């Protein structure tokens, strides 16, 4: 298993915040969370609005990880 930490531990992608990426991977794949008609939002069933709302979760965690691990020029 090569988990390279090249150049004496220099992995620019390493950050404890990377674990946040698991949230938007796992949560949208649990149907009991969203497989329901009620409560509706503006007439839209939970199934649809909640899954669309998961997009925000994805954006938030990838943004945090980007900011934590980006390389400053």
């Amino acid at each position, binding site marked *: 298993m090569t988990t390279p930490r090249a150049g004496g531990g220099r992995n620019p992608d390493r950050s404890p915040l990377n674990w946040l990426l698991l949230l938007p991977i796992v949560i*949208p794949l649990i149907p009991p969370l969203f497989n329901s008609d009620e409560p509706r939002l503006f007439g839209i069933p939970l199934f649809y609005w909640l899954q669309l709302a998961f997009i925000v979760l994805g954006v938030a965690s*990838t943004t945090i990880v980007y900011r934590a691990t980006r390389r400053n020029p």
Partner: protein
Amino acid sequence: MKTTEIVIFTILFLVVSGLGFVAARWRRPDDLATLNEWGLGGRSFGSWITWFLIGGDLYTAYTFVAVPALVFGAGAMGFYAVPYTVVVYPMVMLVLVRLWSVSHAHNLVTPADFVRVRFGSPTLALLVAITGIVATMPYIALQLVGIEAVLKTMGLTGDLPLIIAFAILAAYTYQSGLRAPALIAFVKDSLIYLVILVAIIYIPAKLGGWGSIFDAAKAKFDAAGSGSILLNANNQFQYITLAFGSALALFLYPHSVTGILASRNRNVIKRNMSALPAYSLLLGLIALLGYMAIAAGIKPIGKDNNTIVPQLFDNVFPDWFAGVAFAAVGIGALVPAAIMSIAAANLFARNIYKEYVNRNATAAQEAKVSKIVSLLVKIGAVLCILLIDPQFSIDLQLIGGVIILQTLPSVGLGLYTRWFHRGGLIAGWAAGMAAGMLLLYNISNPATNHAHFGGSAFPLAQLGFDTKITVYAGFLALIVNLVVAVLGTFVARALKSPDGPDATRPEDYFVDEGDPRAHELETTARAS
């Protein structure tokens, strides 16, 4: 014939085609005759261009037409496109930057190039290349289905308009390479965002609000006895395995890799992983057009559900705006079709032509071959649609998703570990392909009159389980692949079968813009 719509469609189409030709001069390189320039736009695209390019590449015209068609016909199941495109970006974020770095360091153009240097196996690279080409071809053909659905609704029948559209596309892709779709993507995506924004405000207002749209859909499914606006106990597992499996597959497609490798540095990729979900929102809203079509009482042309979105636009929008909407879908087909044909052509030029036909090919020869192949690929796609039933392409694309997934162990896992033996990976690939085909062959779909290859939902009952639960066939095939790859690796080691050399170094996976490249390593790998 609908004159206003046709005129607007034609004008926008011509403007975009003009852009395609002009693109050759855009960010003009010293020499366009290399794969780096023609096929990857000089690996120089910043965050904005990359966003438009990859967005335009992944969210294709076919997607925009087929996803609402699926929702129209089956309901909640069609919404899998949303979790699929939510989980994909956090999943691949850290993987793609590694792919970018190692490709930057070794001057790699295709996923098969990576497999070649990582596992030192031309055979495995060839298998990955062929898998990529086979999976991409029907996808290109399907873009034509998107254009065709629009042309049909405007009353344009016959093959000529389709042939003209693709001929123009082929000409400017040949001339400008990846710069053409990159520039056109700006127009395409702006139009799509505009149309959808208008659609989701204007149409529900016209139909009495979201509540009545969903109620109408529910009533239709209840009356028909099939489909539902929610998942049931049996298709939930299919829903999540399909979303997850599709997400695993997405960035294994050669055209996705092309978009990633064309970006300027690692930051651009990471940043796009949080910007691209804007397209997922768009896709989710587009999916709901399927329900709006139900509520508006839209009937597809013939039995072709793919026409419901154009039909809906035609019904509710004033003519001129329907023309804009049709142009958005039509142009939406051009961007991915161009990138896909470039990606398939690069695979051929790099991993078949250079590896097996002309080992000493110069960069210019490589680019020449790729350009010609990109033309051939498009001609093939047009013939595929015109001469064979389009359903054939739809079936093939379904198979394409399953087979591209079989390159995950060598390409995806290969980015992290060199543990697998090349023999094990080849055996795993073969087993995964065989399993995938067998599973798909055994899926029937009475609704579309298919005894075989009727969909991707494999009933577990066929394996002897007493259940009605279904699962995504590609997911099962991938498990078979992984198990065989692991066992094969143990066997190969036990037999002391020689493993290929790994030409990459751990630090290559973190190289960024401005760091020295390691071309000399690549040449050593090829010599060995």
